């Protein structure tokens, strides 16, 4: 863990082409999910005459604002399947994309602070093992061995009663992940068009045939929406609704420190998650601000609360200074699971609702969504995450079931 490990930033990773008048498919949103989708469309389905439209700069939204945690220890079969597939892809992507984005499998611990937590955690460990996800239960002493700076004393408000641990989980450098996908997309012929904001859609009856942008109208046979917090805005332009609420989600980093934190620690009960970035910042996040918001900022008491939780768990953080805080706009669903699949508009597909946990899902979102766009039918991994589940009642209720704080 030192600055020398960071790869040099290349001068050039992708072209900045003018949009063509038509494409076989257009992906709206040039974040991790949009780029991964374009990559798998090109690589797995041979669709290279495609464009990724980004209203700002590449990967400047939630892809640049998450806390980079990657894990797959979800409770339900459907979630475990898609997130574990993502984790398996994370394990091979640095080689496949020929870009070392420093995926560090340093493990993720989910702390238990109440008897309810302990029971839920042990249940989740069991469920994970049945689904082929690496998981184990640690008692407080084992927690302390793995992460010596954690306070496991009984004299705190919510003592650590144990933790689940997923050794294969970890963190990666999110910007580098985006650049890795972008470079490969570009090599495969995908046009990445920045500063290109979608302002509407062209429809023939109920079929989408084009995208209106601030750089002109682009004809296309298929449209994939990967716009996270702005998914509802795009859906409204296209004439349908999504069961999404956009909230601010804040995170923060400290100034740089010597390596002190060897793993990733998450606590739903006192509500904070903490890791130490490769450069040395302590990276922390917690839950969303309660109100709907598109402002990419939240209220300070949320930051204060997560820092209080962090200091209780990690007494040595008391002297660390906050370097900066920021917010992203996360697209939450009521069952805390994503929506990946077809929409009421023909040839328009949506990948959204990843809420507070989209980064870890990036490769699987891209792989399944590309399959869905290319074939018109969902991949088996994203089929349960269809929009229709809100009608059929087949919800995938990860709220309070998995390690909530994504």
């Amino acid at each position, binding site marked *: 863990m030192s600055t020398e490990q960071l790869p040099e930033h290349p001068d050039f990773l992708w072209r900045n082409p003018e949009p063509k008048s038509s494409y076989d498919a257009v992906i709206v949103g040039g974040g991790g999910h949009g780029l991964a989708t374009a990559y798998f469309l090109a690589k797995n389905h041979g669709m290279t005459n495609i464009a990724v439209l980004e209203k700002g700069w590449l990967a400047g939204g939630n892809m640049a604002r998450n806390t980079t945690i990657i894990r797959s220890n979800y409770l339900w079969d459907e979630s475990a399947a898609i997130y574990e597939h993502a984790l398996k892809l994370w394990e091979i992507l640095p080689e496949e994309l020929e870009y070392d984005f420093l995926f560090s499998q340093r493990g993720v611990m989910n702390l238990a602070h109440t008897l309810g937590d302990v029971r839920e955690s042990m249940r989740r460990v069991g469920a994970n093992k049945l689904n082929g996800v690496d998981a184990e239960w640690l008692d407080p002493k084992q927690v302390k061995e793995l992460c010596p700076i954690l306070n496991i004393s009984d004299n705190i408000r919510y003592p650590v009663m144990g933790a689940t641990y997923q050794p294969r989980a970890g963190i990666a450098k999110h910007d580098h992940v985006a650049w890795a996908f972008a470079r490969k997309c570009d090599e495969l012929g995908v046009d990445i068009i920045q500063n290109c904001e979608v302002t509407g859609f062209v429809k023939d009856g109920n079929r989408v045939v084009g995208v209106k942008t601030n750089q002109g109208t682009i004809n296309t046979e298929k449209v994939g929406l990967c716009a996270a917090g*702005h998914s*509802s*805005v795009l859906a*409204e332009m296209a004439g349908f*609704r*999504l*069961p*999404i*609420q*956009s909230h601010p989600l804040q995170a923060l980093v400290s100034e740089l420190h010597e390596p002190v934190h060897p793993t990733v620690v998450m606590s739903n009960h006192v509500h904070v998650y903490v890791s130490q970035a490769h450069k040395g910042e302590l990276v922390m996040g917690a839950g969303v601000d*309660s*109100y*709907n*918001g*598109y*402002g990419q900022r939240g*209220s*300070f*008491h949320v930051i204060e609360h997560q820092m209080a939780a962090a200091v209780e768990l990690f007494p040595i953080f008391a002297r660390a200074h906050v370097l900066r805080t920021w917010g992203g706009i996360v697209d939450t*669903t*009521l069952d805390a699971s994503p929506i990946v699949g077809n929409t009421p508009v023909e040839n328009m597909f949506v990948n959204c609702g990843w809420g507070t946990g989209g980064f870890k899902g990036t490769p699987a979102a891209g792989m399944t969504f590309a399959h869905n766009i290319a074939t018109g039918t969902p991949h088996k991994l994203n089929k349960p995450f269809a929009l229709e589940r*809100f*009608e*059929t*009642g087949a919800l995938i209720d990860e709220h309070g079931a998995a390690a909530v704080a994504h």
Partner: protein
Amino acid sequence: MLLISCPNCGSRDETEFHYGGQAHVAYPENPSALNDREWAEFLFYRDNTKGAFAERWLHSTGCRQWFNMLRDTVTYEIQAVYPMGSPRPDTPGPAPESGTASTAADSTTTGTAAPKISGTSISGTSTSSTSTTAPEGATK
């Protein structure tokens, strides 16, 4: 942190309040007549407006009363505070002179001209029909 003007208690920190999501969502008049799609709309679909948004708040550590608020979801500016059961104000801005909304947004609304919101109506879709006669008191 938002500074919210409770109609009963005046300006208080956001931490005293609980968020209640979109306002003016009526309970179905004839629930047994709804199909699955319509139930899904009522249960899971809410407007997710970018711009002026009518929403409910509960002053949970104060008067413990619900009220409605018109707030911009981009700037977070509070544009109006008004009672449950009242229709959404057409034009946000300085609070009305009378009624329980008299303390509305006094400290959070700037003195400049009220933002125009006529173009940002709640997205026109079937179940977002914003019946202002909804029995909202039931949510108290």
